[in-house]
């Protein structure tokens, strides 16, 4: 079944790269929204919850770590899967954000294969 997706990253270039990578990976996405930081993402989620959030960590305004905690407080997003996409690779940080409610983690730079591998469990 096709999924709705919210992509959160402060770099517009990175958002385009991720979208292209999702297409290359052949993932079935039917609606696609973008946000430049956590605050903008939360605003969009209030109006319209999504199936999957792909989220950067290092962003001005609200960063990804705080955003995950906020999304997990929202009843409307209880079933939303959150996959982090970040240049951060420290194990403690990854374990921390997964404990806070993220469901997957991809490190940048990434390959289409690593995106597919991390997202495909949430596509069914």
């Amino acid at each position, binding site marked *: 079944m096709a999924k709705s997706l919210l992509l959160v990253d402060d770099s*517009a*270039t*990175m958002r385009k790269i991720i979208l*292209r990578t999702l297409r290359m990976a052949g993932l079935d996405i039917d609606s696609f929204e973008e946000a430049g930081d956590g605050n903008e993402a939360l605003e969009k989620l209030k109006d319209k919850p999504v199936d999957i959030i792909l989220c950067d960590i*290092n962003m*001005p305004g609200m960063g990804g770590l705080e955003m995950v905690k906020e999304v997990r407080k929202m009843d409307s997003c209880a079933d939303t899967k959150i996959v982090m996409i970040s240049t951060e690779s420290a194990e403690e*940080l990854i374990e921390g954000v997964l404990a806070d409610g993220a469901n997957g983690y991809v490190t*940048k730079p990434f390959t289409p294969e690593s995106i597919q591998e991390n997202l495909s469990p949430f596509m069914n």
Partner: protein
Amino acid sequence: MITEICFEDVLLESAKEVFETMIYMSVEQCPDCITVEGETLLGSITFTGSIEGCMAICCDKDCAKTIACNMLAMEGDDGISQDEIRDAVGEIANMLLGSLKASLLKKNVGNLDVSIPCVVSGRELTSSLGEGSVEIIMPIYIDESVAELILQYRIAK
């Protein structure tokens, strides 16, 4: 030990990883006598932790445009805006430092906190690190274009 790390090697490996994995461009170190000329863009990002400093990439505007077009998978470069080019250079600096951090983590340097990338026209990266700081400037070929990788750091007190 931080003093035993060859930062030149780590820097070059990071650049290869970022450009070859994400942007499909090749990276080779080029002779030190080659420098970036003309109007340039400088993308930089600072870090703190057991070492602190700044990492940057400096390239001329044509090279920046080529990199941005490759990132966006654009055929020609007519449709690309200055904002898109700057954003692309900033994200390159972000990924370069991300890759560098990952290598340093494996060498037990500990995690580094990083800033948001900053992109300016020009080439002067002024260091406020003062005494005991190290600066590495490494010219590289990105496909046929020349860019400089710059790393300034010192062991934190």
